[in-house]
């Protein structure tokens, strides 16, 4: 029997004020996944999350949480936590009161207590601050704390790292990793922090201009993107000529001045290639092979080059 997807979005289309915002978003998140939703500002990540959570009732396509349509989101039996942008704190109440209110509304009795979630996000010392007295980053952490109350099986987090200092980013990433690996919580997070997402997420989806650009396992996407080879030589034209015929090169080399860049796959023999370049008299000054990152995957996907699995 197939496992029920925690999150399933199919061909999601949304118009706001007559303007198409989403033009075909697909996303499938399995239980236990730590899924990163990536995309530029205004790409449609937050809108997709709002549809998924039933906050935007008018959309085309289908969205479901644990098999329940977003139109009937209140019927979802599995507990889940949400932290969107804006954080949604009542600015007339203290942080602790906001969390108490969430507990009352959710009928939460067991699981993580208010003190525990405040400690997890490092906001114990701010618990009596009013919502509007928290900084941007603290507001984000407070929203995550509220999402963690009880025993959520799924967390949906919109830009949870935005506005955090490096220490806060690291703390959050550790928390998400721990939740996913130790507690089996499914996490869906949107972010611009591609390097951090690459570190913690096992799957990612990229949205661009309201459409899903690619979706897949992080490792598979990185492998498909190949490595980057940076070469600085006195005769770059010789490097270009030689590498364009070498086995394992994924795309024609690009040249900027004396700098040549080329994407290569695992079959590419860097030592052999270097020997060939020396022999051809290219006068190589720098020669570096770099593993592809999600940033490369993102740029390649934007350029329309194949890297999806």
């Amino acid at each position, binding site marked *: 029997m197939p496992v029920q997807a925690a999150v399933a979005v199919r061909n999601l289309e949304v118009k*706001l004020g007559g303007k198409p915002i989403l033009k075909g978003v697909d996303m499938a998140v399995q239980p236990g996944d730590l899924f990163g939703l990536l995309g530029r500002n205004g790409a449609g990540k937050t809108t997709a999350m*709002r549809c998924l*959570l*039933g*906050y*935007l*009732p*008018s959309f085309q396509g289908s969205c479901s949480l644990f098999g329940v349509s977003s139109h009937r*989101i*209140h*019927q*979802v039996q599995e507990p*889940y*936590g*949400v932290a*969107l*942008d*804006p*954080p*949604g*704190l*009542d*600015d*007339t*109440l203290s942080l602790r*009161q*906001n969390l*108490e*209110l*969430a507990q*009352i*509304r*959710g*009928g939460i009795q067991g699981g993580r207590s208010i003190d525990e979630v405040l400690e997890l996000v490092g906001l114990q010392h701010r618990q009596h601050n009013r*919502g509007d007295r928290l900084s941007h980053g603290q507001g984000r952490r407070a929203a995550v704390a*509220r999402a963690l109350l009880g025993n959520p099986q799924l967390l949906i987090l919109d830009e949870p790292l935005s506005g955090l200092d490096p220490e806060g980013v690291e703390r959050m990433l550790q928390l998400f990793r721990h939740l996913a690996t130790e507690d089996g919580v499914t996490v869906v997070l949107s972010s611009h922090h591609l390097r951090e997402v690459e570190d913690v997420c096992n799957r990612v989806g990229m949205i661009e201009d309201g459409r899903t650009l690619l979706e897949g396992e992080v490792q598979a996407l990185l492998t498909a993107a190949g490595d980057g080879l940076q070469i600085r030589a006195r005769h770059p034209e010789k490097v270009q000529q030689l590498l364009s015929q070498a086995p394992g090169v994924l795309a024609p080399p690009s040249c900027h001045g004396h700098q040549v860049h080329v994407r290569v796959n695992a079959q590419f023999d860097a030592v052999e290639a270097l020997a060939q370049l020396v022999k051809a008299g290219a006068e190589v000054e720098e020669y570096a092979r770099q593993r592809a990152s999600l940033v490369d995957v993102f740029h390649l996907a934007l350029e329309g080059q194949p890297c999806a699995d």
Partner: protein
Amino acid sequence: MRGLKRAIQGELYLLRKRPAVRWMHWGVFAVAFLFVAGSRLKLGLLAAAGQVQIGDGAWNFWPQFGAGTRAGLFLAEIGILLLLAGNLPREVRLGSARDPLSRGISRSACTLARCWVAFLLPLTLYACALLGAALSASWFFDAGDIMEGGELLLSIEGDQVAHHLFRSMLHGVFPMLALGMFSVWMATAFRTGVAAVGVGLGVMLAPSLLHDVLGARALWLFSDLLPGLGPDSFLQRTAAFAAGFSDAYSYEFDSVVQLGWYTPWPTFVLAAVAAILLFRKKAV
């Protein structure tokens, strides 16, 4: 309806914890109290100038209790509109309106919980106005019969002054409940608090501004009978009647009063239904 009980518990928590709600209750109490105290000060000055006689007419618990309550309700009615119509658009802007929807509470349950508050808040504010006016009036005035030049003008028992006054106070509850529900409707209908409160205020003031145009139809606008702001406020008439203005509460007005027991209810029901339907499709 899934989550209704939890939604109501959440709304009650907000009622208890929001400073604005607390301050509004204190404000209504203070206005009612101070209005009567100010009235005592004014009567004292007039008596010192020889323009009124101590113990005459308005120098009595009953008219002051009525007038003080009305003064407190004036603020209460504005407060109901501000708190109920202004809050939801603000919560949508802040994102806090989303939280109950992520906690297994249906949209209809959310709105019904708001409607429950719209029922409760006017009653608690009304109680504050009554308490403030009653305390102040009993402190500064005696509750005997209404006198004029040392002679009996109105008997509290015989002329049923207290009865009319209490009836007018009960009469004012229903338009205020309709106002509460109407405010929830406005909150769901508009995206900004300014628009919701602005349109609500327009409807509240329409009977005063358009009384001649509306004529008898004004009675079907709940705001016509609001005890504080309404031009056909029963409380205003009976407070004046208790002060010795025997023509303030005429038998002709009795028919208006009779109709007033029924006219706020269509607005109450219509507003509740409209609010539920509108919030079902509202983007939050």
